[in-house]
């Protein structure tokens, strides 16, 4: 909206001064927003090296008066399941990312490319289901998973999240943009439909798969609700539920809560730094988290 103002050549000294003032003002605005959105993270990292008392000291300190990196060891001692919980979260996240990538793209390929009866109706229904609150289906899903004997097992999470309508939608959007010539040639070569999907289409879909993989990793690693509902014993928690449970018991261990929070966000932060454009692309093309 204001970029044109910047680009316009200065007509006189006064307008130049006004424009310089505007630019300064705008940069102050950008910095204020940045501080507002980023300070809590920065303070969390700094707090994780303080003593518990210093985290909530009044007046507050910014840098730790003494650095306590041992908080990061202490957090594993205070909560003996913490390592297990990090591991659980990682295993289930990786399994679900793999399942999501395979099943969402397979189904999306059918929706985007193959003519079969009921295709358009089913796709429309799928889009419609994205509006159904998860609260409506919660109890039946719980009863089903209970009857399958999957409560307090990873299976509870796998059977209900192996595929997501969001992932199917994202991949279908991508497949529609791929030129058909590639597949036509392969079909003539007698590759078979799965062969076409696996050997021709998937390799081309790498950018979309990366976007879906990264967003799925974020969602499954950050997952709290499903673990709260289906997991019952601390050694079966993921780090999110483990951290929430830890805080429930040790309300005043601010140093360890902060260190645990940093560990919980670290994998996502690394992924974000490495694959930022895929994050942005996934969110931007679908409008969903």
């Amino acid at each position: 909206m204001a970029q044109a103002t910047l680009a316009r050549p200065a007509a006189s000294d006064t307008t130049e001064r006004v424009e310089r003032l505007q630019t300064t003002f705008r940069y102050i605005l950008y910095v204020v927003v940045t501080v507002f959105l980023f300070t809590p993270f920065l303070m969390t990292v700094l707090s994780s090296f303080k003593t518990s008392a210093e985290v909530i000291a009044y007046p507050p300190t910014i840098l730790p008066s003494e650095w306590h990196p041992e908080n990061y060891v202490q957090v594993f001692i205070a909560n003996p399941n913490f390592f297990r919980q990090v591991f659980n979260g990682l295993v289930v996240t990786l399994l679900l990312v793999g399942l999501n990538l395979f099943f969402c793209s397979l189904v999306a390929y059918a929706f985007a490319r193959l003519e079969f009866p009921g295709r358009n109706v089913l796709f429309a229904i799928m889009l419609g289901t994205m509006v159904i609150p998860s609260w409506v289906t919660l109890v039946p899903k719980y009863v089903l998973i209970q009857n399958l004997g999957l409560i307090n097992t990873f299976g509870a999470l796998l059977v209900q999240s192996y595929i997501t309508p969001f992932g199917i939608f994202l991949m279908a959007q991508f497949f529609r943009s791929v030129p058909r010539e590639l597949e036509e040639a392969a079909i003539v070569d007698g590759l078979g439909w799965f062969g076409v999907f696996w050997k021709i289409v998937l390799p081309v879909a790498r950018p979309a798969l990366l976007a879906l993989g990264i967003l799925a990793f974020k969602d499954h690693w950050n997952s709290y609700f499903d673990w709260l509902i289906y997991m019952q014993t601390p050694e079966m928690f993921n780090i999110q539920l483990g951290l929430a449970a830890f805080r429930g018991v040790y309300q005043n261990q601010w140093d360890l809560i902060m260190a645990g929070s940093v560990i919980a966000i670290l994998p996502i932060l690394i992924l974000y730094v490495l694959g930022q454009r895929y994050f942005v692309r996934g969110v931007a093309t679908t409008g969903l988290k």
Partner: protein
Amino acid sequence: MAVAVAGRRRGGVRASEARAGVVFVLPYLVFFLVMQAGALLLAFWFSLHRYDLLALENPFRGLANYTRLPENEDFKIALSNTAYYAVVVTILQTAFALVMAVLLDARIRGRGFFRSTWYTPSIASTVVISMIFLWIYHPTGLLNSVLSLLGTPVQHNWLQDTRTALPALMGLNVWTTAPTFMIVFLAGLQDIPRSIYEAAEVDGAGPMRRFFSITIPLLRPIIFLVVALGIIGTFQVFDQISIMTQGGPLKSTLTVAYLIYQNVFRDEGQVGVACAMAFALGVIIYILTMLSRRYLDAKIDY
């Protein structure tokens, strides 16, 4: 185009294509029939019964679980809290997201840096965000420290006061979701041709005029999307409540989602009532989404 291409193929290929299509779509079909459609029907059946996960007998009650909702004091409190929460958060997060996106759409130095840092709140889990905000809202936490720097020294316990607990949670929500929707708006802004802005500028339209006469009208479909997603998300708010306040103090942060959770998994195990509440919530979300579509996603006239 799909039909034309298919028509050119031999019949055998078409039959094998249809077969492959059905087989490939099976993983979703199973998911849909069990986890979505089946679950939906079963939830409705539960809602017609006095259903208890542990009881042996679950007598039929007709629509009593629904008709009694308006007399349910907890439900009334939860619904009013949820509506208040949803309205404030949806409006604020949409407004902030739009303004942030417009700021980032400008050609300025360091744009990539600002976009990266502004988006960060959206990648953290609700648990981590809750931990951080428990500290921010602590009597000697960040918020009170900043307020004292600004000249109003307070040691207010934001989450323990019935007047400030819910607004405090709203603040947390806006802080995390505004950056997500900022990215959605940013994608929409980049689709607006620059030439429109340039023409308007030649006609003497200032930045404000351009924002309200070009940006807002052209972004209306995206504004609808963001508002709809906001309604769907905020009406189901649960994580922060369960981690930070458990509906307290004095039910001031009790939401419909948290009440459903309590009914199913905590004290009474009143599954039938909980399912009725969930359906009521679903209907409310659906109606509000449709209403916002009528007002926001209408055809644009020039």
